[in-house]
């Protein structure tokens, strides 16, 4: 298909709470990706950065910040901000640039340094900002995750133990991932002993915020061939669709859903992979491995259904049966997911693609999914942002 680009290099700075400037993580990730691709920095023609809102002006202009830190060499730059989907939008910008023939090779990059505790809104009395309103009422991100989790319990009979299964599974996956922040096995008893944050979700059901950086080198198929990387994984789809009115599920940071009086209710999350499958011309039955946004354990179950990896309501059962483990029918979050990484917002969607690239190249070591050919990501952030990327070989 002519709409494809190749991923020839990937790199990640390990996730953690290192306390360095975010630029440090991005530069380390970029250098690893460049080495991996065998591309010299001076030959990169386009730098597509994912912005961070927490690190001052350099974070708002991340593309340029990283270009300067790597050494100005005249490349064109772009910076994207789309909350948790920032990395995918930065990738989409690079793909467009390459497919339009304006660049052969691009660096896609995101990094963050996060504060401790809850992600909080900007300061001041700002009742016009829905993000301010919900925090004034004491409604944090885990509130939304917990509302979805409780809804699953009511609709499908999921239990807290079903949610803990996701943590236990992802912790086992991340155990041998050198880039993961938390590399510790968790038992059901560990999860049950952790404090309740937002009933029914406990601390071990909810992802932390982390420092981290991830980078990709992407290029035209001709360029990949020219440098002897014709077999590199291809990007088959990037979906960054917005919700459709009337959006039926409470979305962060809103205090109410749309009213479905005059328009049919639509589910946003499920529409993200639906567009990606359509664009790639494949279906869920073709997927070998998925990296999904487990902001909470229960949310991983929602994503499994949104990706149509099982019928609606069955995700807890297939997780219990071991289908989503490495070695199972459809491994999910082989990297360890956000459970083992914690969220570094602008880097996270890129990190998902790094993991899938290693899987498709057969380089995931102890995490390897045998014969992985097609990988899909899914993520969602505030204000109608989300993404789903399909890569294949």
């Amino acid at each position, binding site marked *: 298909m002519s709409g494809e680009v190749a991923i020839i290099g990937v790199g990640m700075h390990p996730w953690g709470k290192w306390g360095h400037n975010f630029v440090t993580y991005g530069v380390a990730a970029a250098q690893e990706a460049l080495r991996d691709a065998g591309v010299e920095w001076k030959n990169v023609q386009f730098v597509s950065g994912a912005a961070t809102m927490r690190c001052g002006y350099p974070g708002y202009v991340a593309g340029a910040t990283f270009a300067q830190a790597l050494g100005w060499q005249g490349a064109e730059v772009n910076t994207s901000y789309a909350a948790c989907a920032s990395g995918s939008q930065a990738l989409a910008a690079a793909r467009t640039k390459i497919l339009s023939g304006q660049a052969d090779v691009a660096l896609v990059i995101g990094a963050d340094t996060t504060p401790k*505790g*809850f992600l*909080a*809104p900007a*300061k001041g*009395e700002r*009742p016009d900002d829905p993000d*301010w*309103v*919900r*925090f*004034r*009422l*004491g*409604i*944090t991100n*885990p*509130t939304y995750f*917990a*509302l*979805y*989790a*409780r*809804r699953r*319990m*009511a609709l499908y009979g999921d239990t807290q133990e079903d949610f803990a299964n996701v943590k236990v599974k992802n912790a086992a996956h991340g155990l041998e991932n050198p880039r993961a922040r938390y590399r510790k096995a968790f038992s059901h008893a560990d999860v049950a002993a952790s*404090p*309740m*944050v*937002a*009933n*029914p*979700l406990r601390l071990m059901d909810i992802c932390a915020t982390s420092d981290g950086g991830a980078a990709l080198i992407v290029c035209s198929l001709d360029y990949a061939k020219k440098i002897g990387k014709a077999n590199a994984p291809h990007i088959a789809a990037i979906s960054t669709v917005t919700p459709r*009115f*009337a959006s039926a599920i*409470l979305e962060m940071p809103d*205090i*109410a*859903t*749309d*009213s*479905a*009086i*005059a*328009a049919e*209710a639509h589910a946003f999350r499920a529409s993200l992979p639906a567009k990606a499958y359509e664009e790639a011309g494949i279906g869920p039955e073709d997927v070998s491995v998925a990296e999904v946004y487990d902001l909470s354990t229960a949310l991983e179950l929602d994503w499994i259904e949104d990706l149509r990896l099982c019928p609606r309501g069955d995700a807890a059962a297939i997780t219990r049966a071991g289908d989503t483990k490495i070695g199972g029918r459809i491994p999910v979050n082989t990297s360890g997911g956000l459970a083992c990484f914690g969220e570094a917002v602008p880097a996270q969607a890129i990190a998902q693609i790094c993991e899938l690239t290693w899987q498709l190249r057969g380089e995931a070591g102890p995490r390897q999914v045998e014969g992985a050919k097609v990988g899909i990501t899914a993520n969602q952030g505030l204000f109608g942002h989300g993404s789903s990327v399909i890569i294949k070989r």
Partner: protein
Amino acid sequence: MSKDLKPVLDWFSTGPEPHLIGSKCSACGTFYFPKLETLCRNPVCDSTQFETAPLSRFGTLWSYTDAGYQPPEPYVATDPYKPFAIAAVELDKEKMVVLGQVIEGVGVDALKVGMKMELVIETVPDKTEPEGKIVWKWKPVEGAQ
């Protein structure tokens, strides 16, 4: 409750039967909360005419949770922090779900998805008002299960 208390947000009425104040598109009938009076967000409707619409005072509990840890600012906490429950309530007439805190003294153990909920007004701590400010909250309807 003293009637001098200021609201956290000017988005509801007080009195014996308080309700949220939303708006309704005059053309397609879509409700909005918070109030919208500019351009209807239904993509096939281009109306700029809205009526003020009191929203239903009763609804069905769609989901619920609580805040085990003290939320960050602008939330204003009591000292010591008192956890509270949060409800997402589905309004039948408006076909929408609205969030709010649950009244003091009602925890998650007293809540069940599908139960009838009622809108009430209660005070919450405030940084500048020593008596606190008022806000809408959800309360299980007497005898609801």
